[in-house]
C-alpha cells in the first residue's frame, strides 16, 4: 500500500534521510522508531507530500507521488505531530472543508461527519470553534479528518502526544480496527510501549538509515536481548545504552 524506494533527503551537506526502503502492506501497522533527529518526521513528511525528496520514489496505492500526487494523496490520510487547524472554523465546518478537499460532498457527508466526531468522542463539540479546543481535542479532530475520506493508508507522526490515557486507549483501538479493515498504517513514535503494543512490524531509523526491521521478536533477536520490554532492545540497536550511566552521574 505504501512503498518507498531509496528515499533520500539532503539539506546542503547534511543528509537527513539516506536511502530508506520501506513497504507497508494493507492491514499492517508499521512502527517507525528512532531517536530524535534520526529522520522519522522528515521521511513521514516526504511521504505525505509536504517535503520534496532529493531522490527516491514513493508509491501510495499504486500511484507515484511524484507523477500522480493527487491520486496518491487521495488514498492517504495524514496525522501530523502538531495539530494545527483553522482556529476560526467549527469542528463540523473543518471536517466538511476537509471532505471537500477530497471531493466528498452531498447528502451523506453530514452523517459521516457526525459519525466520525462521535467515534472520536467529539460529537458534542461539532458546532464549537476549534480555538476553544484543548491540544488533545485538536489531535482527535485531526484524526477524524484523516479517516473521514476512508483512506487506504494512514501516516501518523507521534500519535499519542498530548492525549490523556483515555484518548490514547481510544486511538489505539481505532487504529487496530482500521488495520483489521485493511488500512495500512505507518506510525512514527517515540513511545516504545505504543510500538510494542500496536505494531505488526517495526523499522528503526538512525542517522537517516534503516538499521533494523522486523517484528518485536525479530528485533529482540537481532539485538541479542532477552528483555521483554522494547526499550533495552531499542537502546542497544541505536547505541543509547550509555544512558544507563546517567544514574551514576545523577
Amino acid at each position, binding site marked *: 500500500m505504501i512503498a518507498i524506494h531509496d528515499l533520500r533527503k539532503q539539506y546542503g551537506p547534511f543528509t537527513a534521510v539516506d536511502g530508506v526502503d520501506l513497504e507497508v502492506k494493507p492491514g499492517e501497522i508499521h512502527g517507525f522508531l528512532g531517536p530524535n533527529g534520526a529522520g522519522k518526521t522528515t521521511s513521514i*513528511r516526504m511521504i*505525505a*507530500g*509536504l*517535503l*520534496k525528496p532529493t531522490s527516491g520514489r514513493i508509491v501510495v496505492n499504486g500511484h507515484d507521488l511524484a507523477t500522480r*500526487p*493527487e*491520486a*496518491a*494523496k*487521495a488514498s*492517504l490520510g*495524514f496525522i*501530523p505531530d*502538531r495539530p*494545527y*487547524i*483553522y482556529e*476560526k*472554523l*467549527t469542528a463540523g*465546518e473543518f471536517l*466538511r*472543508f*476537509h*471532505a*471537500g*478537499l*477530497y*471531493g*466528498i*460532498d452531498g447528502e451523506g457527508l453530514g452523517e459521516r461527519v457526525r459519525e466520525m466526531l462521535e467515534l472520536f468522542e467529539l460529537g458534542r463539540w461539532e458546532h*464549537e*470553534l476549534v*480555538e*476553544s479546543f484543548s491540544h488533545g481535542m485538536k489531535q482527535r479532530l485531526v484524526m477524524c*479528518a484523516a479517516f473521514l475520506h476512508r483512506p487506504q493508508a494512514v501516516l501518523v507522526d507521534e500519535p499519542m502526544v498530548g492525549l490523556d490515557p483515555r484518548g490514547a486507549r481510544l486511538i489505539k483501538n481505532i487504529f487496530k480496527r482500521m488495520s483489521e479493515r485493511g488500512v495500512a498504517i505507518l506510525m512514527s513514535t517515540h513511545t516504545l510501549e505504543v510500538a510494542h503494543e500496536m505494531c505488526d512490524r517495526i523499522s528503526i531509523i538512525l542517522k537517516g538509515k534503516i538499521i533494523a526491521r522486523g517484528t518485536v521478536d525479530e528485533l529482540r533477536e537481532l539485538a541479542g536481548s532477552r528483555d521483554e520490554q522494547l526499550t533495552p532492545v531499542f537502546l542497544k540497536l541505536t547505541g543509547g545504552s550509555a544512558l544507563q550511566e546517567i544514574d551514576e552521574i545523577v
Partner: protein
Amino acid sequence: MQPFTYLLLPALWSSRNRVKRSERGDFARAWLFGGVSVVVFAVLFWGAFWITTQLYAYDELGDFLIRIGLSWLFLTFLSFLTFSGIVTALSTFFLSDDLRLLLATPVAVRRLFYARFAKTVLQSSWMVVVFLLPVLLGIGIARCAPCMFYLTALATVAPFCVIPVAAGTGTTLLLVNVFPARRARDILMLMGLVFAGSIVLLLRFIQPERLLRVDSLPDVTGFFLTLQSPVTPLLPSFWAGETLFASLVGGRDLLHAGALWTTAGAFTVMLSAASERWYFAGFSKSQEARKARFTKLRFLDTVASLMPISVVRRQLLVKDVKVFMRDVTQWSQLLLLLALVMMYLYNFSVLDLDRIPYMAGTIKNFYAFLNLGLAGFVVATIAARFVFPAVSAEGAAFWIIRTAPIRLRDFLWSKFWSGLAPVLLLSLVLTVMANEFLAVAPLLKAVTGAGIVLMSFALVGLATGLGARYPRFSADNATQVAGSPGGIGFMIAAVAYILAMVGLLGWPSAIYMWRMSRLPVRPLRPDEISLIAICCTAAVALSVGVFLYGMRTGVKALEEMG
C-alpha cells in the same frame, strides 16, 4: 533583589541578537526603510517649519493658531496613545507567552508591573515620539526658539506619553476582569478602528479648505470656534501644548508642566496599586477558555452551494470567507478603509473646478487619470494588505492543503478569485463615482473604467502570486506579511505598473480629447491612430503579462515548496 528593569533584559537581548544576526534582505530593508524614514522626517520637518514661518507673519493671530495647533496635535496623540495603551497592555500584561514563565517565578507583582508598564509605554509611544521629533524641531527652528524649548519638549513629551498609556492600561485591567482577554482584544480592536475612522472623517468634514477661500471669510469665526471646541484645559494635551508654547516664546509655564508630571506620577502609583489588587485575578481569567460566540454564516454555505464551481473550490472559498469574517482583526480594518473611501469620494464631490472657467474641462479630464492612478494605488494597498498575505494566512495549517489531493494551482486560483471580487467592486465604485462627480467626458469614463478593471486583475494576480512566492507562514498577523520584503517588493512592482498604465492610457486619451476639443474638429491623423492603438494594446499586454507572471510564479513556487 534585582531592579524591575532586569525583567526587560530578554526583550533587549532579543533585539540585540536580531541586530547581530544578519538575514537575507537586511541590507535592502535597511536602505529602503532608512530612505523612507529620512524622506518622512524631512517632509514633517519642512511642513512644520513652513507653516510656522507663514503663521509668524500674522503676529498674534499666528501665535494663536500655533497654540491651538499644538493643542490639537497633542489631543490627537492623547487619543492615539490611550487606544494604543489599551491594546498594547492587553498583549504585554495578559497575552504574552513569557508571562506563564514569569508568573511561575518568585517575582513580586509590583516588579512585574513596573517592567511591563515600562514596556507598554515604550511600545505604545515610540511612534508618537518619532513623529514629534521633526515637527517640534521644525517649529523650534522656524521661531529661533531658545535651547530651553528643546529641553522643555523632552520634559513635556515624557510625562505626556505616560498619562494616556497609564489610563489605557487601567482600562485594560478593568476590561480583562470583566471579559476574557481574547474577547476583550477583539472588542478593543473594533473600538479603536471605529475611533480612527471617525477622527479621519471628522477632520475632513471640518472642511479646512474653507480657510483658503476669500468668499467664505464670514464663516472663519465659526471655523475657529469649531477648531477650539475640543481643546479643554482639563486634558493633558492642553497642558503639553501650553508648556511648549510658553517655552517657544521664551517664557515658562511651570503650572502646566507640574500638572503633567504630578498626573503622570499619580497615575503610575495608582495603577501599580490597582495592579497589585487585580492583576493576577485578571491574568487568571484571561487563561480561561470561555465558550467563544461566533457568526455562523450559514447563508454563505447556501450561496456557495448555488455557485457552479467544483466542490474543492467551493469549500476553499467558504473556508476563506468564514475565517476572514470571524477574525475581528481582519475585517474590522475594512471599517477604516470604508472611512477612507468615503473621504476620497467626498473630496471629489466638493472639488469646485468650475471656478476656473477656461480650464475646467481640461482639468476635469486630467483629474480622471489622476483618479485612475489613485484608485490603482488604493487597489495596490488593499491587495498588499489582504491579498498578498492570503497564502501565508494558511499558517501552520497549510499542511492540510498540501496533503490533500488537490492541485496547488486550484488552491491559488481560489485565493485569486476570493481576492478579486471585493477589490474589483471597490475599484469600480471609486473610479465610476469619482468620474460622475467630476462629470468627465464619456470616452474617458469608458477608458478609465476599462483601465481599472485591467489593473484590478493584474494587481490581484500579482499579489496572489508573489504572496505564494514569498510566504511567511509563521507571521503573527497579516500586517507582518504585508510588511515583509516580499510585500514591499510587490508594492514597488505595483507602483511601477500603475504609473506605466496611467501613462499608456492617459497619453493617447489626451491626444484624442485635444483633437476633439478644437474647433473645427479635426480628425485624427493615421499616425496618431496607430499611436493610440499601440498604447492601448501595450496597456492590455502589460496587464495580461503582469497577471500571468504573478499567477505562474505563485503556482511554480507552491509546487516547488519543500
